[in-house]
């Protein structure tokens, strides 16, 4: 048992100190009927090599994004992550530490969180940010609950361009709190329809930009209307790199900004773990969910950091807490911070423009294919094509040709929009990849 340091002599000695003759005695509080007599029917221990081999064979049954021309997005994006990021987050002091409850011996985690919060606030154009949420979708749900608390109103309006799984998570988070959410059907080019749904009963309006179809939405008029009715604008994004090229939600009047941070520092990981970003206006900070790190001084007057505003949280407030959240996405937000610190503003802007140019190039090439139509007026690194065929069939046919050619809209939109194909392009797509995609699509559609 390579992970268990005790040997039989140790165990015997320790039992005698305890005053027990057999380890079974330590389990005497377990009702007799529930004590297992035999080993549970699962395989016995394996060597490190055996486990590695088994997992390696399972891994080999999947098509890794880097091994093929790859164009999937819709909430998760493939970007290059500098090698130093993964090296640093694997340092024992970061990897094997708990939540920084003892600040005197947790300044590494705490200072990194303070840097993370500042970066997220800068990126989103907001005053403050928390120390991360599970992911973008759960952050979105928490934001709606927070807005209802702040405004003391019970209706939320979701835009038709919000990622449908974000909408589903939000509906799920809110449904038992009597927060009413409008029937929302994913629809391109329809986000401005929310203007007609905002009224005095509205607690918040939730708009994603770039939206799930890749369209960039003008948030300012929505913010204006929301504020006129004392409602909050919750701005959502799934691709943080976009904020290197487009106006920040803060500049456009958002009150709360939530998003997925995965693009920066965190790999695709088949959907998780990711890192939820959550930022808001200063005046709302005491209603914000999740952990928050703040600056203070120690007994010598030296600057240091602690977890703070814990009177909002479940371990103090219990049933009156702002949220039941206890865990953040610690290591993923560290990865975000390190990658973002490597990029800096100059790097982020360049990266964003490179993504956008590749997307423009691919959009031009694919929309020139016979029968294919680009539906976007605007986009960043993700756009939607209307195909002359069922997009799911096209994606499967492309996969057979060794190309992961986007996400069929119907897969996340409950079967609707079956001819729409969501396509993302990043700096990782080469000119050869783009050419291969173009040729394969022509073949599949011919």
């Amino acid at each position: 048992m390579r992970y268990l340091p005790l040997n039989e002599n140790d165990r015997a000695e320790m039992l005698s100190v305890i005053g027990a003759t057999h380890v079974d005695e330590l389990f005497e509080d377990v009702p007799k009927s529930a004590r297992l007599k035999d080993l549970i029917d699962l395989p016995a221990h394996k060597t490190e090599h055996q486990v590695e081999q088994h997992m390696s064979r399972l891994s080999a049954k999947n098509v890794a994004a880097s091994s093929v021309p790859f164009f999937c997005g819709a909430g998760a994006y493939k970007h290059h992550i500098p090698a130093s990021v993964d090296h640093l987050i694997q340092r024992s002091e970061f990897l094997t530490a708990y939540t920084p409850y003892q600040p005197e011996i947790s300044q590494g985690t705490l200072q990194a969180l303070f840097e993370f919060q500042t970066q997220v606030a800068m990126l989103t154009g907001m005053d403050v940010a928390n120390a991360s949420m599970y992911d973008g979708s759960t952050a979105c749900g928490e934001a709606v609950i927070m807005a209802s608390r702040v405004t003391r109103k019970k209706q939320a309006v979701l835009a038709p361009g919000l990622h449908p799984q974000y909408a589903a998570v939000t509906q799920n988070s809110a449904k038992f709190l009597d927060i009413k959410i409008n029937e929302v059907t994913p629809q391109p080019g329809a986000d401005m329809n929310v203007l007609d749904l905002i009224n005095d009963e509205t607690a918040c309006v939730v708009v994603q930009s770039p939206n799930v179809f890749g369209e960039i939405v003008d948030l300012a008029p929505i913010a204006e209307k929301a504020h006129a009715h004392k409602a909050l604008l919750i701005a959502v994004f799934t691709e943080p790199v976009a904020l290197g090229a487009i106006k920040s939600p803060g500049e456009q009047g958002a009150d709360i900004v939530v998003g997925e941070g995965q693009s920066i520092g965190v790999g695709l990981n088949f959907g998780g773990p990711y890192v939820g970003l959550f930022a808001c206006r200063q005046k709302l900070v005491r209603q914000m969910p999740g952990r928050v790190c703040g600056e203070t001084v120690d007994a010598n007057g030296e600057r240091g950091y602690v977890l703070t505003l814990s009177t909002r949280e479940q371990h103090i407030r219990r049933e009156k807490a702002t949220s039941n959240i206890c865990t953040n996405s610690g290591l993923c937000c560290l990865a975000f911070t390190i990658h973002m610190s490597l990029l800096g503003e100059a790097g982020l802007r360049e990266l964003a423009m490179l993504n956008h140019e590749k997307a423009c190039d691919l959009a031009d090439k694919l929309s020139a294919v016979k029968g294919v139509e680009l539906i976007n007026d605007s986009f960043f690194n993700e756009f939607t094509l209307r195909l002359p065929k069922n997009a799911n069939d096209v994606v499967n046919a492309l996969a057979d040709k060794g190309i992961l050619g986007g996400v069929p809209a119907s897969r996340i939109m409950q079967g609707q929009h079956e001819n729409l194909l969501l396509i993302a392009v990043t700096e990782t797509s080469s000119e050869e990849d783009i050419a291969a995609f173009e040729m394969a699509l022509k073949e599949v559609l011919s």
Partner: protein
Amino acid sequence: MKNTGRPTAPTSAANTNEQPTASGSKALNQATKLIFETGTPRRTGVDIQEPKGGKTRLGGHERTSDIGLPGLTEPEIMRHYVRLSQKNYAIDLGVYPLGSCTMKHNPRLNEKVARMPGFADVHPLQPQSTVQGALEVMEELSHWLCTLTGMPAVALSPKAGAHGELCGMMAIRARLDADGMSHKRRVLVPESAHGTNPATAVQCGFIVDEIPASGNGRVDLASLKEKLGTPGPDNNVAGIMLTNPNTCGLFETDIIEIADLVHAVGGYFYCDGANFTALVGRVRPGDLGVDAMHMNLHKTFSTPHGGGGPGSGPTVLSDALKAHAPVPYVMKEGDAYKLIEDVRDSEDAFGRMTAFHGQMGMYTRALSYMMSHGSDGLKQATEDAVLNANYVQASLSDVMTPAFEGYCMHEALFDDRFLKNTGVETLDFAKAMIDEGYHPMTMYFPLVVHGAMLIEPTESESKGELDRFIKSMRHLAEKAKSGTEAESFKAAPIHAPMRRLDETQAARKPILRWTPPADVAEAAE
């Protein structure tokens, strides 16, 4: 951790005899400014293929304002974050006996496996034919978790323990609503419960009703019976949320009877599985009458805590609840694995907990851990965890005061009676442990014990490490009880990278981000 009832600001002034250094560093403890004070927005540590600079299609939404994000080159970044890392305590550095947090060793094989390209570099919405191995991992993990718990189904997607609680309680709510039992809204929660339990119940629209603890640290059965009331159409009890072993580190001896009583009034039994590490391979929650239980893969199954996350909270469900499990989940059809991700394909599902499919990176790690240990090793790990906790309890019970009599499970709970009239409080004792080279235990939790100190050594500690830890604890207890050392306890820690931090000031005037010096000056004007 509980902050109320303990001082949150240093009480003693600076009194070190240290000579200040010109650099602000102290040998290995390097002074480390914020990245905003060392980097600049014009510098970058990433070489990017130069954009061509053509016409954009951003719809007139181009960013015109500055962002202000500083950039640093790779050598600067390495040094910055390595320096920061050296200010952290970690499992790999020493005993981390944080009760209820299960700081066991994080095997490095798990890290290697999670980074295999077929797991780390696959997109959640790739065609299912291209991710069959990933779905097989989910199916295998489900099999292990269901078998270890003796439960028929598991929802893998919850992202952390509290998220798993939400999943289980939502399944209960969905079942009650489906049965026309929507008036059942009262959830019983012991006063010793984790704060997440009542917070979760409220988030599901339930009303929390606290049940007191008995003198032996367990649920008071008489109060429970009274709160449950009599069965019948008007009974409004939705269920109970009970941690087992409970937060006092004790097995709830009446648990089967409690489950029966709750079921008898038409309620459901949510078990908080945060402490499942004490039971794996020896007790199956399914045999105790549990209807739903989350497991923390980051506690029981060794995935790293990472300074606060990411976690993972798969939640097992009983026959009564399994139809209401959220999407997505994996089914096997012939030789192929199929992901059910559309609520239309699962009409009783209560909904969706998260975008995509949950914490794949934790699934691969937990599965590697379970396969490594096997059925035999998991049982041995449980026994060693319980043995280690009892060894610590037995070795300290003459100098400290155990909160309850008898054996504990995987964690030993002490109260602060031994510190009475010494001028030393639990917090001071904890800070003195830092100077001894240890991370303090969980303090001031559970709330039912005064000045609580909850020690969970886990199975990962050798007897030698435990003996050294016990020696330090005995030394501190005796020093505190001498009655003359209160000042030195109040001054602790003195050897840590920082002295005690002022949490009161941090909360009163929150500074939650760095602000450029010019802005600070402006704000002051």
